[in-house]
């Protein structure tokens, strides 16, 4: 089962990498980078489960929490900048 999740995370990363490169609008680029991030987080969380212990490893969970907050911060500022550019265009 863990293997499936690893594979899923890999697919997410690869696909969003492709769309990141071909994206021509900021919105799509932002979405793809966010999905790429989710893929990486999935890798982390799958690793947390990939242990001999009964409970999953809490460290990756904490790291992913940090990662999500960081990603949201970056997204927030990107959104603000893009909105500004859009407004200028109009």
């Amino acid at each position, binding site marked *: 089962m863990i293997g499936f999740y690893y594979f899923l995370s890999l697919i*997410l990363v*690869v696909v969003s990498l492709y769309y990141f490169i071909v994206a021509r609008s900021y*919105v799509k680029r932002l979405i793809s980078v966010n999905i790429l991030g989710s893929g990486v987080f*999935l890798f982390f969380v799958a690793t947390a489960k990939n242990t001999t212990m009964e409970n999953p490893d809490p460290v990756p969970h904490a790291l992913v929490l940090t990662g999500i907050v960081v990603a949201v911060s970056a997204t927030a500022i990107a959104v603000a900048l893009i909105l500004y550019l859009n407004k200028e265009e109009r």
Partner: protein
Amino acid sequence: MLDFALGIMLLSSALVSLHSKDLMKSGVFFLIFGFLSGLIWVRLEAFDVALVEIILGSAITGFLIFKLVKGSKRRALRVSAFTKAWAGLVSLLFFLFMLFYLPTIERQDRVGRLVYENLHKSGVESAVNAVLLNFRGYDTLLEVGVITLAIFGLLALELKREAYHWDNPLLQSFSKLLLPFIVFFSLYITYLGTFSVGGAFQGGALLAGGLVFFALAKQSLPLKKSLILLFMATGLGFFSLVGLFYALLGYGFLTYPLKLSTLTLIFIELSIWISTAFLLYTAYKGKL
């Protein structure tokens, strides 16, 4: 089986969101993607992550992207075949590369066991929060720093933008009623963090969601701007002051003595809770 179903759904929502020419559709599917990934975290027993993902990763990011979609022109620029080709090549190579890598991962105990062994010395009972606030508290300090930085950044640039809300009287009164509950519920979640699933970011994000809802319903908070600013800076300020305080006392930077650790951590959680909430709220509003 459920895993496979979830996985396929997650993947297809991601694909739709990425591929769709219609930005609105992309946004909607991105929201769905966030929600589904929340479910997957639950399947993987990452309840804390799930909570944050659903509120932050899915709801708040989704809202932000919606705002963006509204303002963006819906025109799809042509992508040259060449770009597609090399993007495809790069991704394919990366895919193959990672495919070779995946089998090298082994099932093993990583730091997890150590966390559980030292849990009683951390001052909280929940393992994730022990890592977050104590064992790797320094990461969290910087994380609070990052979010503070980002939101102050967008304030500092003074990128003016118009407000966006729903004009619905029913919604307005509902939001007024709802807000106190959300405040208490988010505080409760924050408090839960000391011994179970929950914590400051989760609670803060929840409160932020409530505040955003409140704002969407064309309501404004009865708070002064300077107070909101203060709330926003509380997390980082308090956290780094605590770090400095213990360093000055000679315990070392961010090193809590065992007796005081629970108390300190609760205060830190509270400060992060309030500032996360107001930071995300401001992130949504885009201005004070």
